[in-house]
């Protein structure tokens, strides 16, 4: 992303002291304080009992937000209704993962909400990014973007937790209006109003060997499980083989194999992967297959093989795998792959299969393989100004996405 430099400053305008000449005059008028206190009490009561939700529902937590608004939990009875416009919302519920592409939109919508406004971070993705936290496209917590009042842990939190969070927010509203401290939650494990300081992730030492660390952690976790003996009366369990079994590719359909052998001169049919086809002739192959009844496009997958040195030295290369499916009873897949040198562009299949349009764009965006003759080859997942192709093997998983991380 083009945004570089430090983090965006998060300004909580509510923390600034409020001052207005008329307000100050009213405060100093004798006798008025009683009246304003009464008005303030009514205002606070109304505010607290009509917290309208503006749902920033991006993913799974959004479904639980819907469930909370629906029949069983029914948020309406708390005066909380869901309004799909920032102009009518009091509480932004950030429900779901926020990505670098989405974060500027969230901020724009937050700024469109009128004061007073509050924010609930629902679910571990909104709190901290969850297990996507260290990944290149994910913002590590919505509080790097805007100020958050209530954090609801869970993946996703149950609808009841959202309801509890709203009750806590009501208490917070009351406390803030009367200048009292927010009371502690009786169940601090369920809900946290004051998030512990969260160290920013992004130091390269964590990136270096994420995979090995995960394996080590999993090994420790599984060594804690001592129940190797089956329970009495239980079915005996099969021990896993030490050696991996022979990998089974689904096999090549006879007519597909005959076509490859006779017309396209393919002689090598490996057991564990699809046959390789000359990139110059693969459009012709796809056309023949389409005519023979393989009419459905299944996938286009590009794989990047990084350069290897040492005993098993191999140069950098790419592979693009294609598959078509025959329709109806006894449906079979016809799969093949193209072996490509870096920079080599296979011809696009868009002319034959309209679905290849987005599939090839995705592989171009994420792996960096170009497709000759594609009518509209531009990024599809990442922002247009993104640097690099994330699914290449040499791309660091936790690449910095300034200013969010």
């Amino acid at each position, binding site marked *: 992303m083009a945004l570089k430099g430090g983090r965006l400053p998060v300004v909580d305008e509510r923390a600034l002291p409020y001052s207005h000449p008329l307000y100050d005059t009213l405060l100093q008028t004798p006798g008025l304080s009683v009246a304003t206190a009464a008005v303030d009490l009514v205002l606070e009561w109304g505010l607290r009992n009509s917290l309208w939700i503006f749902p*920033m529902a*991006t*993913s*799974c937590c959004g479904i639980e937000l819907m*469930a909370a608004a*629906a029949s069983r939990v029914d948020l309406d009875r708390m005066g909380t209704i869901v309004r*799909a416009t920032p102009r009518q919302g009091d509480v932004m519920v950030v429900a*779901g*993962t926020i*990505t670098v592409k*989405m974060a500027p*939109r*969230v901020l724009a919508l937050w700024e469109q909400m009128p004061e007073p406004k509050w924010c609930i971070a629902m679910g571990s993705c909104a709190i901290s990014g969850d*297990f996507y936290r260290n*990944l*290149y496209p*994910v913002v590590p917590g919505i509080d790097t973007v805007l100020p958050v009042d209530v954090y609801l842990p869970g993946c*996703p939190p149950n609808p009841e937790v959202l309801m509890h969070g709203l009750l806590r927010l009501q208490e917070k509203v009351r406390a803030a209006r009367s200048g009292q401290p927010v009371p502690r939650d009786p169940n601090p494990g369920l809900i946290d109003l004051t998030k512990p300081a969260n160290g920013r992730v992004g130091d390269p030492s964590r990136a270096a060997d994420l*995979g090995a660390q995960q*394996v080590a952690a*999993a*090994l420790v976790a*599984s060594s804690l499980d001592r129940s190797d003996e089956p329970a009495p009366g239980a*079915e005996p369990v*099969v021990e*896993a083989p030490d050696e*991996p*079994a*022979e*990998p*089974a*590719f*689904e096999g090549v359909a006879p007519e597909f194999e005959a076509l490859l052998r006779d017309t396209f001169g393919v002689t090598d049919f490996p057991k*564990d992967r699809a046959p390789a086809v000359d990139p110059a002739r693969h459009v012709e192959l796809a056309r023949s297959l389409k005519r023979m009844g393989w009419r*459905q496009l*299944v*996938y286009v*997958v590009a*794989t*990047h093989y990084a350069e290897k040195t040492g005993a098993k030295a191999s140069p950098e290369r790419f592979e693009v*795998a294609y598959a078509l499916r025959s*329709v109806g*009873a006894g*449906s079979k897949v016809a799969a093949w*792959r193209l072996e490509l040198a870096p920079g080599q562009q296979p011809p696009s299949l*868009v*002319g034959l299969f*309209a679905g290849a*349009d987005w599939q090839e764009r995705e592989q171009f965006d994420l792996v960096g393989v170009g497709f000759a003759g594609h*009518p*509209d080859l531009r*990024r*599809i*997942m*990442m*922002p247009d100004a993104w640097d690099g192709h*994330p*699914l290449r*093997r040499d791309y660091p*998983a936790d690449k910095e996405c300034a200013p969010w991380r």
Partner: protein
Amino acid sequence: MQSARRGGIDPHLSITHYDPEADLMLLHFGPQHPSTHGVFRMDLHLDGEVVIKATPYLGYLHRGVEKLCEKLTYVQQTPVVDKNDYVSPMTNEQALNMAFEKLMGIEVPRRARWLRLLLAEMQRISSHLLWLGTFTLDLGGALGGGSTVFLHCFREREMVLDLFEDITGARFHYNTHTIGGNRHDLPAGFAAKARAALDGIEARIGEYEDLSVHHAIFVARTRGVGVLDGDLALELGITGPVLRASGVDHDLRRDAPFHAYDEVPVKVSVERGGDCLARAKVRFAELRESIRLCRAALDGMPEGPICGFKPIRQPTQSKATSGQVYVGIETPRGELGTFLVANPDAPTTPYRLKIRAPSLHALSALPYILPGATVSDAVAILGSLDPIMGEVDR
């Protein structure tokens, strides 16, 4: 440069070559709008009320799942893919673990295959109920006071989620499938509770049909709207109810059986219309069929182990050093596939993992079927495709 013109519609139409006299309007639709079912964005070029060109933009929920899976061991990935298609996590887990099992050549016990069938069909019921509720919301307030169907559908969906909670302890993201079988067996008394819930849901499907596909306003809003040709749907790689609503008789549960579908035959529902109404009818038929399949699975559930291995396995035992596999299964949205390349240098992790998301293919029909529709129909068409952005963007 070759054009991808299909059925007279060019998705890459250059607007500057369209009628220069027309007073076109550019409408940004999404990414934050409830009717986009998540964070989907389209740019609609409008001539009056009619869409001339639709340009979808994806990636607002791209979370790098495939990159994350390259870093995790095989046994650690199940809870990650739960979050892809968050309306049917069970089938996500199944598609992933079946690819691992195929790569490693691991057999799944018969009871686990039946259990997976039961879970998949229950998930289909809850997923279609959620689709129906949100689709009627998309169509607006004319249908029984707007959110009536939505509230009813969520009541029934909670019944299914309660059953899942009984089995796995979780309402939403289950992490119950593993390599070689399942982690959680059916609890005592499950069959009776499940049958009661299924009876309750089945009794109410007729009510929903009266409120939707038999309802004059619903039919007026959906008949002939967003017609998708069967050939184009196949070319786009569209699967599932959207494909079957376009008259293509194709369902992997019957045509390439997995789980125990070879023992429990599936009656595939096909509609010829290709419009939003046909898609709704297919999903209604699938709701009934899924209830029947759930009952069959409860009746015929064999005894035996639910996992070929110890359920909590050493990550080092799940390994593969060579090979590429692809497994596709039929989820509520179509063919969810996992393409997997083994890593010879780190046998416990995959070298490349690609998730073939049926919603992505369904959305790719939009540039072809939206031109000519009005803005309000665009919302109905998008809803009828039932996209889940979590698996579109991954």
